[in-house]
């Protein structure tokens, strides 16, 4: 770092001395060294330049003595050269590096979920009260039988090689976050909550830690280009095998877990030497075509004796519908599509903020394309990337998804405050870190409870919204775009989403 | 079952508790030579200072005896024991039959033969009655000489100083409290006492005493030093009260009553606990634990008393000392770890021999003292901890993980 930083601190920590009792909890809990104590003078002080506004100190302070303020814009406000641009340029001028960030795209692109509204029954069709009437959220993931045999022996073989359907009790699963990118404690919290609620968690590309095989029946086990921790036991232990082609935070980019996060335990799970960089390049080098993808799908199916549905996860990109069609035809049982708001780990800032398309449009496009081709019913479609509430989930399903993956929301439930410093490994909340001093802050007992609570709350809200529409099964909502109306969307957007504008009749 | 406890101090009271853990029915009779319910003897100096009122002297509240269904015969002395008839005779002629008997008669102050010493020209410092007598004479401006600078002498010194009495300590050894303090620590304490205006004569003791007109005493020390004083306190040790068992078949007496591991004396049904027991340091914690175990064993348990190293906490005039084991040890056969700050009079010392902690001494910084005592008692190999032992953060986490994990769930 240069002797002189050209940028003033982004945040400023203010301590109310009248409230502070000098218990020093803030000093001990700050992951970034912004809170300091001088024992000789019995004095607390802050280094604002280190503050990332993760709010850990604010939350832990027993007296509420701390407040973090965004520093007022230090320069004349400029609508084009924003503070972000200035900071980034300064940082790159200092380091010459690729800008990194964490969590999903934070730029003010339109959120289509916020321009979609749901229907409700009035008079002509009774609402259903989910408190007293059965309401089915269970969703089955996997491939349905094809109609008609075309080749001799094909039907029989198909029956033998069709992978089983996987039931989930709510159409919400936890999305891929690898052990290594998140702490063992965060990973365990997800696994426990998934098992307790009857849904799935996703291992991400870092393997499944040995002590969590008890939860493998609720695991989507990922296979990514680096193949970390991938072996026959792992594949057979999981319930679903997922080939990761792309992820929403960084479409077209691979993963890179820096050597300092490859602790002994992470190394053992990934089955690589401690301290080496774990490189997952953008491509799988055995996949250059849909035909190659098919070979990996069937390699995995052969290796699991057709007992595990295979999912293929891609980023939502411009040609997503055609790619999804290819994936369906390549023999995948599930397609997972990750929108541009997705992402919980580290990503290069430019990629995160400027590559990919919104998940709402991607779901609509894929669902429509598969319907047009008559194969939508053969395969499950899972949407991911920025689900903030149960309403987002309901809208995604109405647009055509079978289920959704949530990750950012899950991490927020675990304590994440979106400080976007995942890549530093210093997470004060014990989530995106391998430092045992930090990770032990997240007791998985508590973490699992919080995640379970989130699923419980969202699931009940989904039931209420379904009931309002007069629907008693989540399956009846899937692709039911008549229950959606757009607000303030132009004709192209409405057409792509396949919804009418608010005010238009059925 | 009839239980008779001779003595009414810490050992006896704990024996009552021990008995009642196993036997709620049997009768318990306590024979107390003093006219007081049990009190912690070290409390007398605090009483004399005025820090503990009469009401706070009892070791256990009055209800303790009722709750435990124990009757106390105050001011009664047991004078004879008939082990065949299983009966104790008291000084008022009554006979107390027993099934189980505890001899917890404690000790009495040792008073050496000194020229001119008469029962009314000196004080001892062991009993409540001792300090009640002292209270009358210990008035501001008077002068006192205390013979013996051990824990008793030092506590007597403190209470007298607090009452405004000018105190001189005379100690035969070359330093204060020689069994617990090494020369370096003793010098720190001596410096502290001098700062408090206490005179100290070492390597010296009383040769003769003579009453003078006006009640003052003329004292001559062995060194030839002469002085006058109003008060003479003799505090050079205690001797166990073994008379009740003397000469009885099966009992061995060797500067105290010899007991088995279960604290039985060799006479059927007769146990002993506390200062009267041979080899037991005359310290309150040891008496309490022995009393409890003896009580349990009298009521049918079969518990073994694991001899406990001496340990003592002593504070006077704001200085605090904790000593344990061979805390005064010096010499090449020991590994000694030390931390010294002469200004604050902080002194911390650990004595290690053959990988084990055998002694510890703490002046004015008592942090985690009990932890060291546990290492000492359990005979832990402290070699791996050597660098940690005197660090400020020394604690459970300095020990091997399997040890502290176990301790945390105890």
């Amino acid at each position, binding site marked *: 770092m240069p002797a002189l930083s050209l940028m003033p601190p982004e945040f400023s920590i203010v301590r109310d001395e009248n409230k502070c009792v000098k218990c020093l909890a803030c000093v001990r809990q700050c992951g970034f060294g912004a809170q300091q104590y001088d024992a000789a003078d019995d004095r607390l002080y802050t280094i604002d330049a280190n503050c990332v506004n993760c709010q850990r100190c604010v939350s832990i302070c027993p007296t509420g003595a701390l407040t973090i303020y965004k520093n007022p814009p230090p320069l004349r406000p400029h609508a084009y050269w924003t503070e972000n641009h200035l900071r980034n340029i300064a940082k790159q001028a200092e380091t010459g590096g690729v800008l990194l960030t964490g969590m999903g795209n934070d730029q003010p692109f339109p959120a289509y979920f916020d321009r979609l509204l749901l229907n409700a029954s009035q008079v002509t069709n009774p609402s259903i009260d989910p408190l007293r009437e059965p309401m089915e959220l269970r969703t089955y993931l996997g491939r349905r039988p094809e109609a008609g045999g075309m080749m001799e022996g094909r039907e029989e073989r198909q029956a033998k090689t069709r992978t089983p359907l996987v039931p989930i009790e709510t159409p919400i699963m936890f999305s891929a976050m690898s052990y290594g990118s998140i702490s063992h404690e965060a990973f365990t919290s997800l696994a426990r909550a998934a098992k307790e609620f009857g849904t799935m968690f996703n291992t991400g590309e870092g393997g499944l830690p040995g002590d969590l095989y008890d939860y493998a029946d609720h695991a989507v086990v990922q296979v990514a280009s680096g193949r970390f921790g991938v072996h026959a036991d792992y594949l057979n232990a999981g319930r679903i095998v997922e080939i990761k082609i792309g992820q929403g935070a960084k479409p077209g980019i691979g993963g890179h877990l820096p050597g300092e996060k490859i602790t002994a335990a992470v190394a053992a799970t990934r089955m690589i*030497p401690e301290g*080496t960089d774990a490189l997952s390049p953008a491509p799988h080098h055995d996949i250059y075509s849909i035909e190659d993808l098919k*070979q990996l799908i069937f390699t995995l199916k052969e290796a699991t004796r057709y007992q595990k549905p295979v999912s293929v996860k891609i980023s939502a990109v411009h040609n997503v519908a055609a790619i999804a069609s290819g994936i369906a035809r390549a023999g995948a049982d599930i397609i997972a599509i990750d929108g541009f708001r997705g992402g919980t780990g580290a990503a290069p800032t430019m990629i995160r903020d400027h590559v990919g398309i919104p998940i709402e449009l991607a779901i609509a496009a894929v669902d429509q394309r598969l319907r047009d081709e008559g194969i939508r019913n053969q395969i499950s479609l899972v949407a991911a990337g920025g689900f903030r509430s149960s309403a987002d989930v309901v809208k995604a399903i109405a647009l055509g998804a079978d289920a959704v993956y949530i990750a950012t929301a899950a991490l927020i439930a675990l304590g994440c405050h979106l400080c976007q410093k995942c890549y530093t490994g210093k997470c004060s909340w014990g989530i995106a870190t391998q430092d045992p001093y930090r990770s032990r802050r997240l007791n998985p007992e508590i973490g699992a409870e919080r995640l379970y609570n989130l699923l419980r709350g969202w699931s009940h809200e989904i039931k209420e919204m379904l009931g309002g529409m007069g629907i008693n099964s989540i399956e009846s909502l899937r692709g039911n775009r008549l229950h959606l109306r757009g607000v303030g969307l132009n004709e192209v957007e409405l057409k792509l989403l396949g919804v009418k504008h608010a005010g238009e009749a059925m | 079952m009839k239980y008779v406890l001779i003595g009414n101090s810490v050992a006896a009271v704990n024996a009552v508790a021990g008995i009642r853990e196993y036997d709620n029915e049997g009768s318990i009779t306590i024979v107390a030579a003093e006219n007081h319910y049990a009190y912690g003897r070290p409390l007398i100096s605090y009483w004399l200072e005025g820090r503990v009122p009469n009401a706070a002297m009892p070791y256990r509240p009055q209800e303790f005896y009722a709750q435990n269904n124990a009757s106390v015969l105050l001011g009664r002395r047991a004078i004879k024991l008939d082990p065949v008839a299983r009966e104790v005779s008291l000084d008022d002629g009554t006979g107390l039959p027993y099934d189980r008997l505890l001899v917890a008669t404690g000790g009495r102050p040792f008073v050496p033969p000194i020229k001119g010493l008469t029962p009314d020209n000196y004080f001892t410092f062991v009993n409540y009655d001792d300090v009640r007598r002292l209270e009358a004479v210990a008035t501001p401006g008077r002068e006192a000489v205390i013979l013996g600078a051990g824990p008793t002498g030092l506590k007597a010194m403190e209470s007298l100083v607090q009452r405004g009495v000018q105190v001189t300590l005379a100690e035969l050894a070359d330093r204060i409290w020689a069994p617990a303090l090494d020369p370096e620590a003793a010098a720190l304490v001596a410096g502290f006492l001098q700062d408090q205006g206490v005179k100290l004569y070492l390597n010296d003791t009383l040769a003769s005493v003579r009453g003078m007109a006006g009640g003052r005493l003329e004292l001559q020390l062995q060194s030839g030093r002469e002085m006058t004083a109003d008060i003479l306190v003799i505090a050079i040790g205690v001797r166990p009260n073994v008379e009740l068992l003397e000469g009885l078949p099966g009992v061995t007496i060797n500067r105290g009553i010899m007991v088995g591991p279960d604290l039985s004396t060799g006479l059927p049904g007769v146990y002993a606990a506390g200062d009267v027991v041979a080899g037991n340091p005359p310290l309150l914690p040891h008496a309490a634990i022995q009393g409890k175990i003896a009580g349990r064993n009298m009521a049918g348990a079969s518990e073994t008393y694991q001899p406990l190293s001496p340990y003592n906490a002593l504070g006077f005039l704001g200085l605090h000392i904790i000593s344990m084991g061979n805390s005064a040890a010096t010499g090449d056969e020991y590994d000694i770890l030390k931390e010294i700050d002469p200004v604050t009079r902080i002194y911390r010392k650990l004595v290690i021999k053959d990988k084990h902690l055998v002694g510890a001494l703490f002046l004015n910084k008592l942090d985690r003292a009990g932890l060291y005592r546990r290492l000492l008692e359990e005979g832990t190999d402290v070699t791996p901890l050597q660098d940690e032992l005197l660090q400020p953060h020394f604690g459970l986490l300095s020990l091997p993980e399997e040890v502290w994990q176990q301790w945390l769930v105890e």
Partner: protein
Amino acid sequence: METLNARSLHYQVLNESIRNLLDNGCRELVLKNVNGQRYIGAGVRQQARLEIHGVPGNNLAALMDGLEIEVFGNAQDGVGNTMNDGTVIIHGNTADITGYSMRGGRIFIRGNVGYRVGIHMKAFQDKNPLIVIGGQAGDFFGEYMAGGNLVLLGLDLPPGEAIAGNFVATGMHGGAIFIRGQVDPERLGKEVKAVAPTAADQQRLQEIAGEFAGYFNLEAEKILARPFTKLIPYNKRPYGTMYAY
């Protein structure tokens, strides 16, 4: 010993038959007339021996964990893809991404190999995979290699032919590559350097050459007659300074 005639069998049928035989205790199995059937041995965990006559299809021995496979013929792409353990011996050539992300076990190839062979090879604890190639290798040999050993022999190399293609070991950050003879420095990725094998390496190369020669009826001494070049990465964090923290 069991024999299966693979002629005209769909790979799903063939592989299911193989697995059933192995499940039922078969420890030696001969496949005849294999012609492009894929995924043979994929995910198989038994300790057994499989002899293949013909040309197996892609992803032979993928995710395999313990089997010994000997192929009398060529193999195609993805031999030993993400293989965990076992041995594969191929009497002909193999194609691209042989040993992709291989973590354990050994592959011996008498002939040439295609592109990106040994890509993402790893090592972990006692797992230290090995690929020995008798002939030449295509481009991106040992790309992203993170552990294990690649041994490239270049036997019977026509004069003027390069032993390896371009971009050898780009992105390599662990393990070691041994190349019999020299490799043109222009062809090396910027993450690796060429060094002389150590005495311990020579010892290991002798053992490897001995085993290789044994499988293919060659003379180890002749293989060892030419000195080897060893390629190792400059460090295990090739992209450690890429990012602005």
